[in-house]
């Protein structure tokens, strides 16, 4: 895979997130987006005139509005500005971050504002995802993003009892994190004594995937402002640097429905490539936080092994020993993650936004109680599509394996 060193450094200088909720009937789409735009501009101390280019992204199939960026210009402030629209499924927010970084790094623009949003209550999410499937065959069979395959594999490999407890431990930890995050859509106050009850009684969606395991359908928007190194240092005392990112996707997969391990996932492939070219030998030691796009508790547990290049049951032990809690060895999603809030077009961008806030040290009640210098953020979409991003507090990393 060819990869060139960045032309110039790019920093995150402003972040805005709306409160995530199942119902934002009090505002229409441009009004909701405007809340996050206003917040990001205020956070950066900028005015809309300071923005050179606006990126806009969501999934049209969810609200059934094509070219929504036209209507939304009232809330985005993009009128008369260079502007691009992106839509890559669940990864949309991650792709927006990659694109903004590339646009600034290239030298084409100094300050770029990226906007991810979704109002899932205004359409039908599972129907929309099902219609992403190949209409010749898969549309008849797919059930949106609902699948129990990760559960099947974990149960086959580690036994039902251990696998189910690990998934529910992960779920309860995410809820404990969500309860600290004032922006969460779902924060139940789950506790350990509910484990057995939830494993048995939460309504099943598919096989061992139960309602409690699955992410929500949320309304909300996220905005991040990116600036070149020179500008970033003028704009803020605490820029967060985008060190590198990688996007890996594969063919539209009709053969995922097997029970075959080890299989080569885009997550593991992306992680291997990204760490290698950045000279990161032990990601579990290197990173201080990981904001993962975890659409369900089962996937969350399973994917820890892929992203950290772990072996055997090392990922289960991380969960079982609660090392992934906010004060653990490797905090996963102090924000509560995707299970706590999933406005899809914004979701992947929220991972980067939350990771950046952790580095800045102003995440709020869910700030990790120790310094955060290196952060990882992931995105997931399609039948297997991965975006993985590394954020840094200081501009002091070594080159790695660049051409």
């Amino acid at each position, binding site marked *: 895979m060819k990869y060139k060193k960045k032309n110039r450094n790019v920093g995150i200088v402003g972040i805005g997130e709306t409160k995530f909720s199942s119902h934002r009937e009090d505002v229409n789409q441009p009004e909701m987006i405007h809340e996050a735009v206003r917040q990001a501009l205020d956070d950066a101390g900028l005015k809309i005139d300071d923005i050179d280019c606006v990126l806009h992204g969501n999934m049209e199939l969810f609200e059934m509005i094509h070219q929504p960026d036209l209507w939304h210009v009232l809330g985005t402030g993009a009128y008369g500005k260079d502007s691009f629209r992106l839509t890559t499924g669940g990864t949309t927010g991650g792709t927006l971050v990659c694109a903004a970084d590339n646009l600034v790094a290239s030298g084409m623009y100094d300050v770029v504002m990226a906007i991810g949003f979704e109002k899932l209550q205004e359409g039908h999410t599972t*129907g929309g995802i099902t219609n992403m499937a190949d209409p010749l065959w898969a549309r008849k069979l797919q059930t949106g993003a609902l699948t129990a395959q990760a559960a099947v594999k974990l149960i086959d490999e580690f036994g039902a009892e251990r696998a189910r407890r690990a998934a529910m431990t992960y779920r309860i930890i995410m809820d404990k994190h969500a309860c600290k995050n004032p922006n969460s859509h*779902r924060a139940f106050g789950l506790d350990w004594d509910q484990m057995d009850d939830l494993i048995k009684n939460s309504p099943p969606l598919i096989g061992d995937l139960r309602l409690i395991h699955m992410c929500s359908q949320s309304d909300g928007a996220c905005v991040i402002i990116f600036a070149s190194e020179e500008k970033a240092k003028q704009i803020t005392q605490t820029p967060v640097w985008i060190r590198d990112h990688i996007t890996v996707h594969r063919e539209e997969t009709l053969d995922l*429905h097997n029970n075959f391990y080890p299989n080569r996932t885009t997550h593991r492939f992306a992680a291997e490539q990204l760490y290698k070219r950045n000279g990161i030998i032990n990601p579990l030691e290197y990173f201080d936080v990981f904001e993962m796009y975890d659409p369900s508790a089962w996937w969350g547990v399973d994917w820890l092994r892929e992203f950290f290049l772990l072996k055997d049951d090392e990922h289960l032990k991380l969960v079982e020993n609660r090392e992934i809690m906010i004060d653990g060895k490797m905090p996963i999603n102090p924000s509560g993650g995707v299970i706590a809030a999933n406005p899809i077009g914004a979701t992947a961008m929220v991972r980067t936004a939350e990771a950046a806030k952790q580095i800045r040290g102003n995440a709020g009640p869910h700030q990790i109680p120790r310094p955060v210098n290196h952060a990882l953020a992931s995105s997931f979409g399609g039948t297997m599509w991965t975006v993985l991003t590394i954020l840094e507090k200081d501009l002091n990393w070594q080159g790695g394996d660049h051409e």
Partner: protein
Amino acid sequence: MSEFYGIKIEDIFNSMKDRFRPEGAAGIENTFGYAIKGIGGWKLTIAKGAMAVDKTDDLSGCDVVLDTDGETFVGLTIGKVDAMSAFTSRKIKVKGAFNTFGLTSRMFHKYMTPGQETRQAQEMIALKKTISVNQRFATGPVFGKFLKGLKEKKILAVKCPVCGRLQSPPREACAICRVRNTEWVEIGPKGEMRMLEYCYYASPDPLTGETRETPYGAIGILLDGCKDEEVFWHLLRPDQLGKVKMGSVLNGKVTHGTRLRPVWNERRTGTIEDIKYFEIDE
């Protein structure tokens, strides 16, 4: 008389007739039971665009029954309680298909306490739209050949000339090797089950509004002649959902799944539906 949040439970049921939206109930034929702990039961019948609600403790004939306490029920009705939270904390229980209860939200206008309209500074209006689109997809010569095979009760696969992997339904090229798939082989039609997605969630198609019957099984079948990850994606005969076993390959260790065979439709038109489903091969 039972009051929560200043609202009488009886008022919620008694006002149902006035709040009923016949357009929201079109095509729905169901009976819904409400068992409110310590207060009583109500039975809501929806048929032919009309409704009836009766106070009765006999909810045995209902399609679905919502079992909850008065405070939670009123909270749900006026939006003070989140349905998902109530589910999770077991404050509501549903007997029957829990998705069905979702239908009630569009059959009724929101409950308003008397005088609430005047308290609201401005009415929030939401516009409702339904999209219906006719679509026609070209299948192309490769996929078309596969669909023609189904009409003749044959399952065809393409083979990559470089890596040798089989794909069915076929793809024009091997995306990994970036070469055209030119060789065809016939696979199956029998095989073994490698993955079962036991679906309880009634998945709708937003363009047609068609909802699938639940539960159903979406399965991955390793058809005879295929190996490793070369599974075929289709459906299981619904009444055999509980009788099948998944096979697997985990770190080289093979476990065989239930043997399955296709059940062909009498009338085949070259679509996925030419195979009704797969059933146990006994």
